[in-house]
């Protein structure tokens, strides 16, 4: 939502009379109600549509009617993030300082360094914040601390950094209590809703490999029957089920699947699925073995891939997991593919 801010609320603004392009100092208004387009946009990016270009202009924004004493909140310029934040700020009068994180959310951008000390200092200076407000306090989201050194920001800008709550929905309570965060506000969670919200991207990411599998199955069908039959649907079904198992069931059931190793979590659900497929579909031994191995490879890999979407995995741990799980997955995939193709000719 890149509202120009010109003439909004019927208030003429000095910037509008000048025919200049928006200068760095332009302060824009930001509403706190989401439109159906915002909601549709959020659904889109959750499924990977326009995900890397869903952003708003960085800079200083008004929420409500803030004055020189109003709090300054800092956030990223990912539009999904901005929408969540401004909606949570409904009814408040605050300044929103939006950093240029290239359209990436606060935590991920902080990990990359784009939501970082340098950008925060530069943005405070470019927007002339010190002339807009009388106090010298910034409220930075706690997860931004991965990229922001509070003491360096203070030294460079004179603004002291207060780390706000992890979730935007806690901001009103945090501000109302005089910028005091409760223990719960400081903790990152990974509830089933949060897990489900990131699951679509796992499924979208497997569309290309799924297309490749479908092409090979269609080719085998053509070689065997010289035409495509409805049998192709039954041939493809186990692989679609495997992708949904790895991409949706693994995230959803994450805390309850045994083992801390994500590849093992995926493989365990894959074993259940393979057993179900063999029970439902009468397959010759070679094809059955091939399909089972391919299911295991898919669910195990997708389980492992989900590490990146979680809130508690470590880089060292993932390196260890990949080192031994990836070879197993590759062997299962190659052996499975050979058996599945060979099965079609037996």
């Amino acid at each position: 939502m890149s509202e120009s801010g010109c003439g909004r609320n019927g208030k003429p603004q000095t910037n509008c009379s000048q025919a200049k392009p928006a200068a760095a100092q332009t302060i824009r208004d930001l509403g706190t109600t989401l439109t159906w387009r915002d909601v549709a946009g959020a659904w889109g990016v959750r499924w990977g549509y326009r995900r890397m270009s869903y952003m708003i202009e960085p800079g200083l924004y008004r929420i409500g009617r803030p004055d020189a004493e109003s709090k300054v909140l800092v956030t990223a310029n990912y539009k999904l993030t901005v929408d969540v934040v401004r909606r949570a700020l409904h009814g408040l009068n605050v300044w929103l300082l939006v950093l240029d994180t290239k359209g990436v959310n606060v935590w991920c951008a902080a990990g990359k360094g784009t939501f970082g000390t340098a950008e925060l200092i530069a943005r405070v200076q470019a927007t002339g914040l010190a002339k807009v407000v009388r106090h010298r306090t910034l409220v930075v989201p706690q997860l931004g601390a991965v990229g922001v050194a509070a003491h360096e920001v203070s030294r460079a800008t004179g603004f002291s950094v207060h780390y706000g709550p992890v979730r935007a929905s806690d901001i009103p309570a945090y501000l109302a209590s005089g910028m005091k965060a409760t223990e719960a506000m400081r903790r990152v969670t990974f509830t089933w809703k949060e897990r489900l919200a990131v699951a679509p991207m796992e499924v979208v990411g497997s569309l290309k490999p799924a297309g490749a599998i479908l092409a090979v199955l269609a080719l085998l069908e053509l070689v065997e029957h010289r035409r495509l039959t409805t049998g192709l649907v039954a041939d493809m079904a186990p692989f679609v089920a495997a992708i949904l198992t790895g991409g949706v069931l693994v995230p959803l059931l994450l805390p309850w699947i045994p083992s801390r190793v994500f590849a093992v979590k995926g493989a365990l659900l894959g074993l259940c699925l393979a057993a179900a497929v063999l029970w439902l579909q009468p397959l010759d031994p070679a094809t059955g073995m091939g399909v089972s191995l391919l299911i295991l490879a898919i669910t195990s890999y997708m389980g492992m891939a989900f590490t990146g979407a979680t809130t508690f995995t470590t880089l060292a741990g993932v390196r260890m997991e990949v080192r031994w799980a990836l070879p197993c997955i590759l062997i299962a995939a190659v052996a499975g593919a050979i058996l599945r193709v060979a099965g079609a000719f037996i």
Partner: protein
Amino acid sequence: MKYLLNGHSLMMASDLCNGCGRCVEVCPHGVFAMVQKKAEIVNLGDCMECGACGMNCATDAISVESGVGCAQLVVASMWRGNGGRTECGCGG
């Protein structure tokens, strides 16, 4: 939920700690607590090595090898054969 090798690289030099409490404040997993006016690691097993504590320690009392625990990133960097850090492609 816990993973593998949680907090294996997190180290704290208590003698350097000035008791500002920033690490307690920024840690998303409650790894630190203030004990007698100094920060202490009380919950190492929940550490995901995000690096927020070290980043905000003005006296360099905390050291941690931070990074993103993402298998796709690790596989991609192995594929390219550099074994080092690759730019994280995701973030939604």
